[in-house]
């Protein structure tokens, strides 16, 4: 049995293509039904998010299965195959397992380490389980993927470091101010990066925003956008003491906030620490502000340094994550291959027994004068022959089950002896959370 993956992601397709092949979660039953109705496809799961559309399936016929799923994706969305084909990737066997483990662990995400993807795969799997399109292998496979993702999350720091300026600013603020839920942000001047940072601060729980700008209307407009409070630029220093976080990016030619101002402001706020970020060039905030006790000034360059360090850290962590995935692939692959050993042995035995019985019956029925215990003796003889003949291949198969080449043996045996397709029992499967 083989696991195959067919799909496209932000790495292979632009959003225009991705949105065309997305499956709506509200009507997922229909495509799931069609998917497992395809020839040779036994189980199937559809994962559809804004960054990727992927189908996981099991099949005996790898090449045929992949081709049929590709055609299915195109047909279902009424797209010509040629349009879709260049964006699609497909994996089978170990590569498929690795791919899904990496996706679930957020190693394949646009922002590596972002946590949403795991939840999205869980939901997709939930639908597949509900509509019974996933069976013993995909059940086990996806649960394994979830536990791998959990391991990656707890054993590496892949998700814990900031790699954007805005995010790095938030992380840094937390290192100084601790909990942000009672902290206020002051935006001085407008600028894309400052606005983005302000948004991040609000998302991270900051209490409120004050906005000031040389043109008051602009401040009012921005404040409205953030649900914040506009402040007249001339009155900046009357309000600055209420701000814990100051993001500055005006186009002013000189510094507008100096160490003396900051000292005054700090005194008014009983020396509660303040966090300044200066994004403007030329600078808005005098570098000497950093020397004032309880004031911490950072520039974009400082934030970039953090990001560089985090990126380096993150790629280290990603390596660790890949190692975890390697281990888990080995384990899962072993399970997948031993899955077929016992049924193959049973099928082989019954095939031999069938032949033995048929030949025995033929011989006995054509025999006119049979010695008294001939039938019994022949029975013993043929069974002994059969057992002797089967002994070596059976034990070879069992041993291969502990090694790695079991697929080879199983396929060879099934072809050589024309064994029928194997059926799996769902019973032995015990789902872990």
């Amino acid at each position, binding site marked *: 049995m083989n696991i195959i993956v067919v799909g496209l992601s932000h790495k292979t397709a632009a959003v225009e293509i991705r949105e065309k092949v997305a499956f709506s979660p509200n009507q997922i039953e229909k495509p799931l039904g069609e998917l497992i109705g395809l020839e040779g496809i036994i189980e199937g799961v559809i994962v559809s998010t804004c960054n990727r559309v992927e189908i996981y399936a099991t099949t005996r016929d790898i090449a045929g299965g992949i081709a049929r799923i590709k055609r299915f994706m195109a047909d279902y969305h009424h797209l010509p195959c040629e349009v879709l084909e260049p964006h699609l990737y497909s994996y089978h066997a170990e590569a498929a397992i690795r791919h899904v483990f990496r996706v679930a662990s957020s190693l394949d995400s646009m922002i590596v380490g972002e946590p949403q993807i795991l939840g999205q795969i869980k939901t997709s799997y939930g639908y597949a389980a509900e509509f019974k399109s996933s069976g013993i292998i995909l059940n086990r496979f996806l649960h394994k993927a979830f536990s791998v993702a959990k391991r990656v999350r707890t054993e590496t720091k892949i998700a814990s470091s900031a790699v954007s300026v805005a995010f790095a600013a938030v992380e840094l603020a937390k*290192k100084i101010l601790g909990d942000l839920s009672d902290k206020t942000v002051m935006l001085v001047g407008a600028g894309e990066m400052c606005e983005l940072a302000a948004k991040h601060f609000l998302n991270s729980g900051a209490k409120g925003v004050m906005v000031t700008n040389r043109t008051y209307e602009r401040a009012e407009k921005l404040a409205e956008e953030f649900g914040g409070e506009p402040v007249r630029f001339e009155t900046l220093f009357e309000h600055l003491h209420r701000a814990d976080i100051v993001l500055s990016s005006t186009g002013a030619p000189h510094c507008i906030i100096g160490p003396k101002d900051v000292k005054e402001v700090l005194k008014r706020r009983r020396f509660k620490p303040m966090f300044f970020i200066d994004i403007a060039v030329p600078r808005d905030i005098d570098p000497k502000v950093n020397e004032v006790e309880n004031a911490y000034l950072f520039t974009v360059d400082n934030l970039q340094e953090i990001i560089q360090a985090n990126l380096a850290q993150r790629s280290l962590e990603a390596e660790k994550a890949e190692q975890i995935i390697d281990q888990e692939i080995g384990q899962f692959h072993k399970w997948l291959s031993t899955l077929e050993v016992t049924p193959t042995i049973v099928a082989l035995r019954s095939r031999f027994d069938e032949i033995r019985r048929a030949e025995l019956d033929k011989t006995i029925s054509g025999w006119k004068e049979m010695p008294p215990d001939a039938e019994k003796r022949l029975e013993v003889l043929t069974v002994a022959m059969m057992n002797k003949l089967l002994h070596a291949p059976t034990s070879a198969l069992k041993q291969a089950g502990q090694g790695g080449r079991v697929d080879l043996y199983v396929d060879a045996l099934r072809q050589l002896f024309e064994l029928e397709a194997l059926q799996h029992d769902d019973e032995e499967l015990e789902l872990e959370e």
Partner: protein
Amino acid sequence: MTHLFYFLTVALYGCATAAYLACLLRTSPFMTRWAGRLLVAGFTAHLLSTIHLASKLKYLPLTNMPESLSFFSLAIVGGFIFFERRYKVTTLGSFVVPVALMMLTASSSLYAETRQLPPILQSNWFWFHALLAFASYACFAIGAGVAVMYLIQNYFLKTKNFGALFQRLPSLDTMDEISYRCLAVGFPLLTVAIIAGSIWSEQAIGSYWVWDHKQTWSLIIWLIYAALLHGRLTIGWRGKRAALLSILGFIVVLFTFFAMKHSITW
């Protein structure tokens, strides 16, 4: 029996120290959990050993330097366990637990002799005084540990040095709060301890305050921490200034503890 507990405690504190120092080099949830467990196990052994010793001696083991050191270390570890649970500050362990371990090892002559307790110590006020004094010292020790961490982190932030240690240390705000809590608990304890001590002094030698070295230095300690608490509450001192003062306070505590012999007892 007491020896056994003592060695067990030293061993467990040793392992916990190693684990906490390892946490400083490399964050791992596994290591953090085990550092905590080892320390709690060590604390339990330490507590049992103290109780065992107390029941053998028939008084609280606070009457000489080794006994006091052991008790000091017990109080520090107990206090740290509380703060670690409350604020999840594993890194504090890397600064505090080694100190506790050193104090405990220094008290190894602890069980050398059992001696007749001088009658002067057989006063309830003395036990009350000593217990509270050590509880407050433990608070100040933890406060000083946090203050050292604060200064390091503050230095990193000011110089924009974002290394591995920077990542592991807690936020300035958390450290400042722990430092304040230590002070807010330690200072009243110290105040009551000094009052109890002077009542005991009156009972023992007939005078509340004799201006011996120990009492004078205790008063200095009290003044330092009073100034710090006052500064925090009224002016809003915090951060670096508060950290420096609480380190200074603890240095004086250590100096008083090790160098100033009590004219009454020793």
